[in-house]
């Protein structure tokens, strides 16, 4: 009997090309996603060294960060963004990399399109010059974000020198209560372990509450692994995974599907395998979560109170909270419920999938957005947009007074003109509440699509359970 292994260890072992004493292992990369922001310098590096893309057939590019979410038939007004997008399309053409460009009917946020095309599959190694690559871990893939130098290495060689990470089991038992969603699980986890809690680790999400999630909800959880410091976060594949993949354009077909299933069913962590670290959460005790500060770990139940710095003994911790509250213009010891909101953003690689839009529509249907609130609904991809249209969701959003936009990263990173003005408050379904993340001086409360939609209706931070 060989030693019991975790899923992360199994994927690691099957992708090591070479391992020498002292040197990092050479890890083979099955799938490389590329976007316009972190790739131009890498393609330029290849050009300067006279190298080709080794496996364009294992590489896919799309535009998402810099593109406007307005009418796609119009040119991009920002000349710098336009040049960056054009550069990606030109690089892809020059190096033979498939590219879902601005006018592609498959364009979308990189971590939305990979899975929905069936390109992300269990047991794969997946990288992208983007920290939210962890999203793909929801399929039982070892997926992690890399820098531009590493993008260049993978383009050139399809490999990365890597050290094995520690394994960290996240056990989420119990069942979520109504109004509480996958986003609340991950915000509660990060609040518990802190933004550096998973540094050096690959997370594996286990337990009944995780098994009960749909693929889209699982992606919301694994997506934010990096906000807990972990480069990767996996969920073992099961029938939910296989049902999602079956019939997708790039999923295996016929006999290859049957063979893949046999392989994929061997991936889950063996009985008796051990992890370096572990943490438990009780899903049945969770409430809708919201962040109050400038770090994703600064989250509280929506009915809770903002921590009072005066009550924090540890000086470093106290200063961190004081700094965050100063930026956010909030007072410690007070509840967030009822706090005015100026903008609501529903979208991103965390919460821009059809399930998320359905959640938002559930709250907005038959209601009106508060006239003081600008509400943006941004589908994660053209396919999500089409699905939403087929279900009549845009009509619900428009009737409520929300804006229905074209797919992209939009207000999650505010590179494309979709911004929150300085000093304004947004409830956002994205993944980061860092200072200025949604525009210079913007103030972000991170929450689920349900909680965000509730704030759009009332104009204040709201417990969505009062509207369901």
């Amino acid at each position, binding site marked *: 009997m060989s030693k019991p292994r975790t899923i992360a260890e199994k994927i690691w072992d099957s992708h090591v090309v070479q391992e020498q004493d002292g040197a990092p292992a050479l890890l083979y990369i099955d799938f490389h996603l590329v976007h316009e922001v972190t790739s131009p310098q890498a393609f330029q590096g290849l050009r300067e060294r006279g190298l080709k893309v080794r496996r364009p057939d294992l590489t896919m590019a799309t535009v998402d960060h810099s593109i406007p979410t307005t009418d796609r038939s119009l040119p991009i007004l920002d000349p710098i963004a336009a040049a960056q997008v054009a550069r990606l399309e030109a690089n892809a053409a020059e190096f033979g990399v498939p590219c879902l460009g601005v006018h592609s009917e498959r364009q979308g946020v990189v971590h939305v399109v990979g899975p929905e095309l069936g390109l992300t599959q269990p047991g794969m190694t997946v990288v992208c010059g983007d920290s939210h690559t962890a999203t793909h871990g929801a399929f039982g893939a070892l997926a992690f974000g890399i820098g531009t130098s590493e993008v260049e290495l993978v383009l050139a*060689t399809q490999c990365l020198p890597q050290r094995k990470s520690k394994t960290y089991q996240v056990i989420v038992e119990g069942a979520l209560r109504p109004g509480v969603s996958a986003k609340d699980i991950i915000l509660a986890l990060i609040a518990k372990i802190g933004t550096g809690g998973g540094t050096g680790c690959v997370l594996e999400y286990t337990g009944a509450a995780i098994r009960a999630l749909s693929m889209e909800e699982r992606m919301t959880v694994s997506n934010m692994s990096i906000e807990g410091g972990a480069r990767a976060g996996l969920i073992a594949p099961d029938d939910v995974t296989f049902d999602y993949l079956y019939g997708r354009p790039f999923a295996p077909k016929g006999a290859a599907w049957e063979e893949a299933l046999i392989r994929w069913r061997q991936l889950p962590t063996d009985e008796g395998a051990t992890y370096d670290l572990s943490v438990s959460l009780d899903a049945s005790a969770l409430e809708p979560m919201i962040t109050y500060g400038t770090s994703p770990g600064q989250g509280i139940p929506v009915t809770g109170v903002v921590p009072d710095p005066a009550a924090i003994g540890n000086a470093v911790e106290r200063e961190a909270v004081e700094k965050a509250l100063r930026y956010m213009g909030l007072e410690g010891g007070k509840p967030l419920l009822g706090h005015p909101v100026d903008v609501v953003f529903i979208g991103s690689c965390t919460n821009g999938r059809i399930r998320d839009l359905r959640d938002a529509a559930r709250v907005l249907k038959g209601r009106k957005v508060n006239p003081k609130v600008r509400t943006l609904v941004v589908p994660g991809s053209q396919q999500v947009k089409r699905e939403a249209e087929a279900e009549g969701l845009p009509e619900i959003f428009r009737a409520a007074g929300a804006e229905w936009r074209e797919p992209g990263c939009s207000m999650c990173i505010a590179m494309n003109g979709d911004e929150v003005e300085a000093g304004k408050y947004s409830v956002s379904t994205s993944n980061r509440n860092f200072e*200025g993340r949604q525009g210079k001086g913007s103030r972000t409360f991170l929450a689920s699509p349900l909680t965000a939609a509730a704030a759009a209706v009332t104009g204040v931070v709201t417990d969505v359970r009062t509207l369901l």
Partner: protein
Amino acid sequence: MKKPFTSFASRLVPLPVRNVDTDQIIPARFLKTISKEGLGDQLFCDWRYDAEGKPKPDFILNQPRWRGAEILLAGDNFGCGSSREHAPWALTQFGFRAVISTSFADIFRQNSMKNSLLPIIVSGDVHRELFELVDKDPDVRVFVDLAAQQLTLPDGRNIEFPVDSFAKHCMLEGVDDLGYIQQHMDAIEAFEKRRTSSINTLAGKGWLPY
């Protein structure tokens, strides 16, 4: 060819903030560039300049006394968040050669070493002591020796710090890891042949842009 990383002595710029994310190091709106250059002026942009774009005199990097210092003494969990390599590009173009903290985010640490920016991990005690030293005497200097993996304090004490042996080799020699991987191209080809029969790949599936 990058410049080999050599040992040096420098003053320390204290930035006692926890969880500094890469959006603070360089805000996303500057990532529309297709170049690696010209990012030093945008380092910590939103902390460094006011709404009119004028340097804020109270921000440490704007204070003339710190000019020329090559080490950033940062708070815990430095470089978290986005994977943007623009963060180490901006730090090195500003003039930093090392950052000292108790911990670094994984992607930032890797990106830094690929750009000859040394992340130095010290214990909480040494970290506190360094802040106290700078507080007492802003001109205090420490010596950084990557080969020995040592930080030498003004009183002569040597503090060892961990560094990945491979990344250290690359930094000291001024080489990147492409050359290392290319030595193993035969192994990569053999791996690809071996696994196409047993592991699903995306090849040969009519892979076309839509």
